[in-house]
């Protein structure tokens, strides 16, 4: 009865008392028990539903939460052995808000350690496997949540991204991934990676589910000075208004794509046109620039954010740090060192401003910019280790939205020659989540994502 259902559908079953919340919860626990040993999406699971909110947006809905969100009394590791025994004494704003909406925490999901990576392979607890092909990576760093949603070990989940860590795993795992505007969702209680970039967001099986979760978690937070006071819209309501938009097509975002992905992207554009959307050729700064800017700024922030893990007050000593964290810390230390700041960090900040201005210019003419979140489909596990900057290079289409802080969404558009999911990527202007969701919802209605999401479960062994 529950298998494959979206949040909206489960909510209806619960409301009409066709099923109890305990039954919903144990349905997912049973699936986790069956499939997780192979997929390794969850690091920690809970035993029973505990919410006392019965009439919230998410009452009775179990969700998978990435293990970098602090959950009071429940182990939170960010997949790093440094925090192997860390039990937070406080709750992140995102999960607090989910609690207020009545959600059930199903478990904490695997990720790249400290969110450093695009494959979950840097996790100190072993990689998560892609449910579509367990010899492959689900993407990362929110790979655990993406794989859990894809394999329906959870109806939906929470991820976070610094540059692509929601959109890329959503794409590789064949589900929907939304990166909200920076500041739309509070970062309080999210173990920081790149503080000027980090964004919590939903990974779901439908656009409506993404809208529901965003509705629950978005908004100004007195605990996060960078959270925005822009009013939160009724995303579900606004999503369903019939609107047409102009989509910008920038050649710079079509370079270096896999043939199948390029083809499916071109088809998606045709579908939007058929739906009555206008398209417009535009020119943007090459996403190439974002790679260097992102690498410099993120490494500097990583160095700083990891400085607190000295093992004195909590957690294990520094010797528990994995090699990726050490590499990042060293590069960050270097770029901020006396005499190098101007050449690296300051220059990167200037280019970041140019990227922001570039987007602002383009969004005067178009509502969205279309592309793909990743130039290739899921890689085999182990392939990342060959290239230390592979994640950064592969995430080049995700990085511009991260650097500028604009919202973006990843939507499934079919399977490639290896039966692996592909996606398109829409970027929108600041705080235009409701438009982004509106267009995505229309695309979903039109295409049902080519059946990708449903096939994900059927495919599962």
């Amino acid at each position, binding site marked *: 009865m529950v298998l494959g259902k979206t949040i909206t559908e489960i909510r209806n079953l619960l409301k009409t008392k066709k099923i109890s919340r305990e039954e919903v919860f144990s349905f997912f626990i049973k699936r986790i028990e069956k499939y997780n040993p192979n997929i390794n999406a969850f690091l920690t699971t809970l035993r029973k539903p505990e919410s006392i909110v019965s009439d919230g947006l998410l009452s009775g809905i179990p969700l998978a939460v990435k293990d970098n969100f*602090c959950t009071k009394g429940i182990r939170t590791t960010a997949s790093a052995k440094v925090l192997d025994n860390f039990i*937070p004494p406080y709750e992140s704003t995102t999960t607090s808000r989910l609690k207020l909406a009545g959600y059930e925490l199903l478990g904490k999901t695997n990720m790249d350690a400290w969110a450093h990576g695009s494959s979950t392979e840097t996790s100190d607890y072993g990689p998560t496997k892609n449910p579509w092909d367990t010899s492959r990576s689900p993407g990362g760093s929110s790979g655990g949540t993406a794989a859990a949603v894809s394999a329906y070990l959870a109806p939906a989940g929470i991820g976070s991204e610094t540059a692509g860590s929601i959109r890329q795993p959503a794409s590789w795992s064949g589900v929907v991934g939304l990166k909200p505007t920076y500041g739309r969702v509070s970062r309080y*209680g999210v173990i920081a990676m790149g503080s000027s970039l980090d964004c919590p967001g939903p990974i779901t099986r439908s656009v409506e589910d993404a809208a529901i979760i965003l509705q629950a978690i978005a908004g100004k937070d*007195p605990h*996060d*000075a960078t959270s925005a006071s822009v009013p939160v819209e009724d995303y579900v309501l606004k999503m369903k208004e019939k609107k047409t938009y102009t989509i910008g097509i920038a050649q710079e975002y079509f370079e270096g794509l896999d043939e199948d992905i390029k083809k499916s992207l071109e088809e998606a554009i045709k579908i939007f046109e058929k739906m009555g959307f206008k398209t417009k050729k535009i020119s943007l700064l090459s996403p190439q620039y974002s790679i260097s800017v992102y690498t410099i700024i993120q490494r500097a*922030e990583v*160095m700083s954010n990891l400085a607190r893990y000295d093992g004195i*007050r909590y957690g294990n000593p520094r010797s528990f740090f994995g090699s990726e964290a050490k590499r990042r810390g060293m590069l960050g230390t270097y770029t901020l060192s006396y005499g190098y700041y101007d050449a690296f960090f300051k220059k990167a900040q200037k280019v970041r401003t140019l990227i922001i201005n570039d987007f602002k210019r383009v969004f005067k003419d178009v509502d969205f910019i279309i592309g793909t979140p990743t130039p290739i489909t899921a890689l085999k596990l182990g392939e990342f280790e060959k290239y230390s900057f592979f994640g950064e290079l592969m995430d080049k289409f995700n990085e511009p939205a991260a650097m500028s802080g604009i919202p973006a969404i990843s939507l499934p558009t079919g399977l490639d020659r290896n039966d692996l999911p592909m996606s398109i990527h829409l970027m929108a202007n600041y705080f235009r989540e409701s438009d982004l969701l509106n267009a995505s919802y229309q695309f979903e209605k039109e295409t049902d994502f080519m059946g990708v999401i449903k096939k994900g479960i059927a495919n599962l062994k």
Partner: protein
Amino acid sequence: MKNYIPVIGLEIHVELNTKSGMFCQCANGMHEAEPNSQVCPVCLGLPGALPVPNKKAMEWTIKIGKALNCIISKHTKFDRKHYSYPDLPKGYQISQYDEPIALTGYLEFGKNHGTYKNEEKKFRIHRVHLEEDTGKLIHTGDDTRIDFNRSGVPLAEIVTEPDFSSSSDVKMFLEELHTIIRYLDVSEADLEKGTMRMEPNISVRVVESEKLKAESQSTDFKLPNYKVEVKNINSFNFVKRAIDFEVARHIELLEKGETPVQETRGWNSEKGITYSQRTKEGAHDYRYFPEPDIPPFNFSNEYIDEVKKSLPELPSTRLNHFVNEYRLKPIDAFILTRDKKTADYFESIATNEHITNAGQTVANVIINKKISTSLSVEAFITEFLKLTKPIETNRALLDTTVSSILTANKKAVTEYKSGKVTVIMFLVGQVMREMKGRADASIVRKALEEKLQV
């Protein structure tokens, strides 16, 4: 011949006594609280915790800046200053690097400044910025424990230019700064408790004799190629003594042709000496970068003006005001203005409708503690009027008393008539005693003089 001029700059840290912490909601000013009882995820630097700046602390730093005649930055931001120490839970301190709240001010000392020798002085302020305090290490036997109650307390840092050439100037400056901070009511500025901490940076420059006069007035000189910072000093006198100790030590080394080592030294108040703590090899690399968790600030002119308007009359202005308005002796005005409460008390009495042109008398009474200032203003005034009320003199009794005293003191009368007029005071005293004090001394004197002229 070589001459030596000390070059001294100051760093002063002042803990602001805002209600809550610099970046969290923890109660502030709980120095006596149980260790680690006033902490939260933010000031403990737990994973995922974020700082939210305290607006009041920013406003108060602007106040300090304004009181020190600084330019207030309209654009300001916080930065992360990285260093590793167990009392610093995040591995970095949130501070301000290149855009401090206040810049380029000064503090002037006028001729009326009580402790000073009738010379005008001016010392420049380099900057005033805001940061968070660290935790405290407590060493007991072989153990070191950390108390994080102080972690995240707002800390204003005031940095002067190296404008001081004598330890007494430094002491005067620090005392005045302390008075100003207390006037602003932004900090307890308690040296014992460490809510005001002072670190002099000391070096000594060598000047040729013929240039001595010109050089000693200059602020535009080449700084010596070393400096010594002295920490852990908790009284103004100790600052003075530490500087004197250091200057003598440096001169001794320089005389031998050596350069003192650039280092941080501690002060041992029992022995009255400084001792080496750690040597600094050039500038520390703190890897500063803008704090991404706190957006930069833009202050409007209106806001800055509003804060400026909220400043009280500052001690030096008030000193001059007391001299001009109440005709006080500068030294008395200085004493009364050292503490805002006392100055306020004085002023509410001096301006009271029952008191006319008696400012200096009120000042004397307060300073000499003839009437307690713990009384209410009304009660003080009643006492004051009683104390200063002219005594009614019984004329008839006076005349007979004067006559009998003059008769009984023939020797004194002769002396007076032969020119030793000061003897009259003895006679006044005799009359006063005879009349049991119920006479006005000036009237007694007048009556005596009249009789003696005859």
